[in-house]
């Protein structure tokens, strides 16, 4: 789609961030395969356009909340990838000193408040940050990313209701990747579009192609403006797909290969690259440079992480209470 009114020079950094997320997660995956990283990992490869399309419109002091699949959200919000990688690897230099791990990223310096291992768990939290933002009157907004699986959780509904009643500056970003863990959405609800719930609670909503960065940006621009100008919450549903299993090591037998191939065709990075090339904003050599730069940075992040010390056992009982 060539009709988007975006300034070409602003577009290149977006491609860079998408590549940084992709390279980062592929590195995480490789380290996991080598048993350098343990635990339960959920990768968002294939969903980068949602993270980048949203976070590129936010200020550092806006609050972002994620879920269990949130490496990309944190990077897009500006988290330091060295500390992020170290955290996922459980090292002392990680953002959370090894206490949080992949599912519990916190990067306060970047305004990434917290992620959660409980599906839908951060949706109410984002409401609270939005409430505080409203009271502080500095035009901050809160954004919460969650998957389609969270749409069937009670907390999601309670949150939509309260956000609407209190006109909180919160943007609900539903990454509808079609699968709640191992189950297609259609087995979990008769509703095809989760934005339907926003209508019930009188929240303006939009469903977009989540693999089209510019379409995501366009919808988010409106949503962020709506929230920032005190008009209350907004809801954006992004239709996307994770190209990996639910977790690293998931054989994903529930998914047809043809479905996967179809989505690979819609890879958000490839699509955006084609778009930029079409607009003659970048040439092949620029693209190659962006990718290799991303790989270099993530390689360094991996080295930093693996060279970092483990947390000392004595740290285990620290920071239980402030």
């Amino acid at each position: 789609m060539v009709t988007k009114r975006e300034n070409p020079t602003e577009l290149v950094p977006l491609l860079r961030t998408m590549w940084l997320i992709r390279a980062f997660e592929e590195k995480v995956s490789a380290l996991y395969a080598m048993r350098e990283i343990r635990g339960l990992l959920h990768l968002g490869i294939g969903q980068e356009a949602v993270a980048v399309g949203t976070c590129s419109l936010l200020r550092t002091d806006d609050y972002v909340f994620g879920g269990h699949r949130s490496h990309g959200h944190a990077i897009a919000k500006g988290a330091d990838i060295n500390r992020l990688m170290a955290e996922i690897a459980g090292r002392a230099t990680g953002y959370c000193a090894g206490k949080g791990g992949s599912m519990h990223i916190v990067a306060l310096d970047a305004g990434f408040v917290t992620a959660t291992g409980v599906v839908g768990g951060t949706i109410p939290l984002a409401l609270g940050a939005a409430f505080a933002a409203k009271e502080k009157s500095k035009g901050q907004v809160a954004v919460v990313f969650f998957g389609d699986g969270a749409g069937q959780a009670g907390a999601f509904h309670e949150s939509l209701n309260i956000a609407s009643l209190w006109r909180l500056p919160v943007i609900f970003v539903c990454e509808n990747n079609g699968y709640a863990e191992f189950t297609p959405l259609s087995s979990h609800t008769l509703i095809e579009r989760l934005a339907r719930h926003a209508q019930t609670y009188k929240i303006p909503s939009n469903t977009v192609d989540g693999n089209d960065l510019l379409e995501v940006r366009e919808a988010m621009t409106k949503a962020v403006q709506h929230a920032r100008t005190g008009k209350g919450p907004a809801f954006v549903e992004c239709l996307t797909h994770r190209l990996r299993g639910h977790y690293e090591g998931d054989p994903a037998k529930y998914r047809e290969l043809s479905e996967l191939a179809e989505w690979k065709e819609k890879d958000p990075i490839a699509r955006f690259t084609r778009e930029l090339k079409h607009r003659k904003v970048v040439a092949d050599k620029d693209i190659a440079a962006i990718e290799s730069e991303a790989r270099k940075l993530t390689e360094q992040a991996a080295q930093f992480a693996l060279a970092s010390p483990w947390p000392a056992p004595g740290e285990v009982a620290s920071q239980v209470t402030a």
Partner: protein
Amino acid sequence: MREIAYYEAKFEALNEIMAADPTVHLINGTFLSLSPHRHVYQELANKYRDRVMSPPISELGFCGLATGAAMAGLRPIVDISTGSFIFEGWPQVANEAANAFSMSGGQTRVPVVFHLFHGLRGGGAAQHSASPQAMLWNNPGLEIVLPSSPRDVKGLLKTAVASDNPTIFVDHVQLLDVKGDVPENDSPIPFGLAHVKRKGSDVTVIATSYMVQRCLQVAERLASERISAEVVDPRTLVPFDMATLMTSVEKTGRVVIVDETHQSCGVAAEIAARIVESGFDKLKAPLRRVSTLDVPVSYSPPLEDYIGPREDRIIEAIRAVLR
């Protein structure tokens, strides 16, 4: 005797239960977490398509659904899977299922089984490693079962499904590959019967769930130092078999309790308090407990290893009570 793995014994039980009783329905999950043995469950799901349900991520909704179904004549087994998620369904488990029989003056029976995996599983961090059984023990109306061997999981699961009460079936991922003797056609194991897993004379080690396996290894090691540890597994917290425990305590006079719930108000605290209350005169030394430290479960591998009831902490506690 026949030796099989824990997960195989569990599936034998589920298979036999499903075949024997058409009112048993399985709701949610896989009963095997993300382990490589998940395919076993698929066979069951294929065999009983109408009785194996896969609900949305609505713990509150499906814990309640199963409770209601139990009130109306089914015997559902709900897989909450990761124990931490029981907190989402908590109102239905703790407020509704647990109280219904008593509040109705004994009229409404709730034969539902809530199955969950507890404990340190390797990288589960703070939101996938809960051991909620201690909190549930403070909640009258729930039976609580903690198997530790292939034979126990099979026998106890059958009793849990047959029970007319809501039962919390607390499992541990680390047990799935443990092998043990399971006789063909073995009978269900009644609740409220502790089991002496290893005979000994110097010290009584009371252990639950996966910690039974760890304590058996520790006991083996200590045997070479001529320390004879008796390992006793209560198997069910509700009902609780105090008599078997006290027989062992009377013999040894020294007690270590090893359990994976957090220390404060944990399972070990209650067992300790009871022994101190009713068997104080038999104790030759202060009783010791080895529990998970009172911190949220850490992600980083060395931190996670550190907070659990490690082998060295168990050994140290045993030496302390023997001094």
